[in-house]
């Protein structure tokens, strides 16, 4: 009898033994009270881009059920893919913005950011007209009786959806990437919370969940996207997604910040469509991009219409 064909003494092969071992260890690691099927599934879930159609369907169904139970109302989780031939672009008219922060809170409501600890995806900078866009003089805690204040102008900053994003390159687990339509997204289930991306982003556009996202159930926006505004777990990084849950629909709604702006300073459209307002403003207005010298190639364009 040769060695190779010898059966193990206990009558189980190596594979079965390993499987049993893994199961045992995992069972130890998971608290028994929570050890439901959904925790198991979440633990072994693949990277978003490696999920097959069926697996994605299961993941979405699982999350839908989880969130609906947690918030006591019907929450939908979708994973609408990019629309073919579309590259999103955003325009912001600095000659119009008055710094009223309506966009900041419109975004919080639409995208289910944590209320406390507080996360804002949009930061409105107050700048001095005499100093121009010199960011070292920027102030974002301004709180006068009324805006705009004499001698100042306002520059909201959010994710610039770079075509050459430094944040995705530093991610050690590839939990963040630019999608085909130009939106930079995060797979919250894959993110390990190392915050390298936050250090890499020159715009301060990424935010960390120090606690589990704290959103009152009655204020939760139930129309959610896997890569966008679904409730975030503790310890992951999040960012603006151009309202992926709205803009990828057919027909696509405008981002929440665009819709709420009381002075019409915000513009949004398809950069590939020569008839879009984005193309018009880039071709006809004075346009600049923030920190151009870093070669991040933003798809967020600041402009002066007047």
């Amino acid at each position, binding site marked *: 009898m040769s060695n190779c064909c010898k059966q193990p003494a206990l009558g189980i092969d190596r594979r079965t033994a390993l499987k049993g071992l893994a199961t045992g260890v995992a069972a130890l690691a998971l608290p028994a009270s929570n050890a439901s099927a959904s925790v198991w599934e979440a633990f072994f879930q693949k990277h978003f881009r490696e999920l097959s159609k069926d697996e994605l369907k299961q993941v979405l169904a699982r999350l839908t059920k989880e969130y609906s139970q947690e918030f006591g109302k019907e929450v939908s989780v979708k994973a609408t893919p990019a*629309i073919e031939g*579309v590259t999103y672009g955003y325009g912001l*008219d600095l000659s119009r913005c*008055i*710094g*009223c*922060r*309506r966009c*900041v*809170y419109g975004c919080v409501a639409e995208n289910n950011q944590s209320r*406390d*600890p*507080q996360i*804002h995806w949009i*930061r409105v900078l107050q700048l001095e007209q005499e100093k121009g866009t010199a960011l070292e003089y920027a102030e*974002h*805690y*301004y*709180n*006068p*009786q*009324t*805006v*705009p204040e004499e001698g100042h102008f306002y520059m909201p900053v959010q994710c610039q959806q770079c075509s050459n994003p430094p944040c995705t390159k530093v991610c050690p687990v590839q939990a963040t990437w630019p999608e085909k339509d130009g939106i930079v997204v995060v797979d919250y289930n894959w993110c390990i919370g190392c915050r390298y991306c936050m250090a890499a982003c020159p715009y301060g556009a990424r935010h960390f969940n*120090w*606690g589990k996202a704290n959103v009152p159930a009655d204020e939760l926006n139930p129309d959610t996207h896997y890569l966008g505004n679904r409730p975030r777990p503790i310890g992951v990084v999040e960012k603006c997604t151009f309202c992926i849950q709205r*803009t990828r629909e*057919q*027909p*696509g*709604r*405008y981002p929440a910040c665009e*819709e709420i*702006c*009381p*002075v*019409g300073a915000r*513009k*949004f*459209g*398809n950069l590939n469509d020569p008839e*879009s*307002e984005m193309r*018009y*403003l880039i071709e006809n*207005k004075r346009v600049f991009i923030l920190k151009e010298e870093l070669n991040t190639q933003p798809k967020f364009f600041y402009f002066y*219409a*007047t």
Partner: protein
Amino acid sequence: MKRNRRLTALLGSGLLAVLLLVLSGPVQAAKEKYFDRSGRLIVEEKPAADLLRPYQAGNREPEKTFPVPAPPFSEGIYPCSDCHGEMETNPQRRELEDMHTDIVLNHAEGQRWCLDCHNPDDRDVLRLVSGETIPFDQSYRLCGQCHGDKFRDWKVGIHGKRTGYWNGDKQYLLCAHCHNPHDPAFKAMKPLPPPVRPGEARH
């Protein structure tokens, strides 16, 4: 002999005319259009008849209309003819005492008065400088008479705001939805609260 010579002259001049016609055709056509280096058409010269025609509003292409929501009338104020239908028109510049006392004209008030925009003969419509009357939901044409640059930007969705879908149906907000036509400058407003400073967080 004499006859022959005459015939030759006739033939010659005829040939010349034909030649001129053939030559002049394409030359003239090329004169009417101007292209830049990349081949893009810059100017197309109009035929003389078009240039000589006297200016008439009727010769213009009709202004495009844009889908807009209902104009933002104060409650119960429209139709204006409910009151003004029977009233005599008073074009005098004066302080209004009985009605519309809330309206303070702060919009180049030195150069205009009510009836420069509101039509004296039928108050339910507005009146352009040309005399053409337009309904209130086309008031952008009235504003566009002076604010041509803003009107141009508004039409392509840069000035002001369009609602609806970025890749679908859109509605334009009228100028009057954001600007009070009698006092159009934007009013300062209270900002929403600033973000919590890191030191102030309760965690």
